[in-house]
């Protein structure tokens, strides 16, 4: 395995241009999905999904960008800030989607990323509710490459960010990072990105930035640390991110043990029903 790579998305410099969304769609040939006006600031992409592998969130807040010392809360006044954050698949160290995939379509690449093999996925949908971030989803738009009698039917497979696996193979950075005009999306070896993020956080905190925090950086968190992590300016849930995600399979050994006991109880129950009566 080559060095593990990932994204560090520094939302403090995101300008909400959505170049990442566009570059991703173009490079990965992601089909169009429902476009409409949500009225929720400038966010008309809604959420990550099978047709949106990057999603820029927009949050308008009555809060100052910087908080200077202890007097800040009283001086908020008419302060307004606009938070923007480009969300993406987290490429978890312990990835629930990969664990629960029954076909082996989801796999870990030599770059430490998590990718769906589109020629293997049979669309069982198990990864969809397994993902603690609600990233992966099944594509329902029509597909051109299905055999009869399914020709023209929905694609039916799951899709998500591949961290541009094909570009990595060719020695290029992912399309979104390449297109980002402010370097809000930074690509590189994960260790290096973590160091850079720590330095950036220390700088922002020193300058009194309001709510600055790293998200997904900690290798001891519920998913073993994210391959794509973030510097946020408010709590994760404000951006639609779970504050303390846990990979579901962490609890699976206990669940299997419970299942064995329950199966045993059923056997005992049937035996009692058969041998415990008159007929």
């Amino acid at each position, binding site marked *: 395995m080559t060095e593990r790579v990932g994204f560090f998305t520094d939302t403090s410099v995101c300008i909400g241009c959505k170049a990442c969304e566009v570059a991703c769609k173009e490079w990965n040939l992601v089909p169009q999905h429902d476009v409409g006006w949500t009225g929720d600031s400038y966010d008309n992409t809604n959420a990550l999904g099978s047709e949106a592998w990057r999603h820029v969130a927009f949050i308008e807040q009555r809060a100052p960008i910087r908080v200077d010392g202890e007097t800040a809360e009283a001086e908020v006044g008419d302060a307004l800030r606009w938070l923007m954050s480009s969300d993406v698949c987290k490429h978890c160290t312990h990835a629930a989607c990969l664990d629960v*995939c029954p076909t082996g379509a989801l796999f870990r690449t030599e770059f430490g990323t998590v990718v769906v093999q589109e020629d293997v996925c*049979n669309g069982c949908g*198990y990864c969809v509710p*397994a993902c603690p971030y609600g990233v992966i989803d099944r594509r329902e738009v029509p597909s051109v490459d299905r055999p009869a009698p399914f020709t023209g039917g929905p694609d039916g497979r799951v899709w998500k960010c591949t961290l541009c696996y094909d570009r990595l193979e060719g020695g290029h950075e992912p399309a979104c990072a390449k297109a980002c005009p402010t370097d809000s999306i930074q690509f590189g070896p994960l260790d290096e990105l973590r160091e850079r993020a720590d330095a950036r956080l220390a700088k922002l905190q020193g300058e009194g930035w309001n709510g600055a925090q790293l998200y997904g950086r900690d290798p001891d968190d519920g998913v073993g640390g994210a391959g794509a992590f973030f510097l946020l300016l408010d709590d994760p849930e404000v951006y639609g991110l779970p504050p303390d995600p846990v990979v579901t399979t962490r609890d699976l050994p206990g669940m299997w043990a419970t299942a064995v006991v329950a199966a045993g109880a059923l056997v005992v129950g049937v035996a009692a029903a058969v041998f415990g009566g008159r007929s």
Partner: protein
Amino acid sequence: MSSVTTERGGDSYYGRPVLKEPVWKPEIPLYLFTGGVAGASGLLGLGARMAGNERLAKSSLYVGLAAEMVSPALLVSDLGRPERALNMFRVFKVTSPMSVGSWVLAVSGGATTTEAVCDLLGILPRFKLFAAGVSALVGGPLSVYTATLLSNTAVPAWHEARHELPFVFGASAGASAGAAAALVTPPWAAGSARRLAVGGVLAENVAMTLMERRLGFVGEPYHQGAAGTLTRVAKAATLGGAAVLALAGRRRAAAVLGSALVLAGEVALRWSVFKAGFQSARDPKYTVGPQRERLSARAADARTR
């Protein structure tokens, strides 16, 4: 004009879900039911044979066979790519209850079909007994693994229910197999099936009550919306059916009525659990709330140390 402006530290992003709702269609709750019937029928069939009740063993065999035939059809139909159904057998993964379950269902289906063929042709009695044994051996796992499958997701109403759900599903499977056998067996031979149905219904309602009580806030979806309605229907139908079976099951008409009620109730129960998961995933408060509490508790714990 309404404003989208918010204060710092909100609890969701425009109220949108954090998780994705499952993409599973009605085939899946139906399979939760038929898979349970298939699994527990294997157990009941072998038990009846060991007790010398050939009539009940035969009923269970063919009830189980019907369920084994329907189950894979439902599962394949639910796939986004049914033409790739066999990809389920590319690998065997213990981290994926769906992978384990696919293999269990395949073994169970093969064993039950083999047993039925031997029975129909009246050949290979020892091989038939061996097939019945295999079918019974995987019957328990087949009856409960679907609970593990649902619990092994990020959906709060399913994941947090992981301690009780296998018991709910196992008992439901027993009740379903018992009621199905009682439906197609003359009452004189169906005593064991009726007892299994009544016992299963009681056990399942106890387990479900304990589960809802322990879940508290996270368990709200089980009482609300479509899931809530189905939960109430399931309770009424299973308990009503069990009462009819227990009190008047020796009369054919009552046995049919009671069994039908129990079966309908078991389908409703599976459907309610299925629906509760969707409702739970849809509302970000069930995802964010408990996680935020967990973080606060950890922070408080760190401060006192």
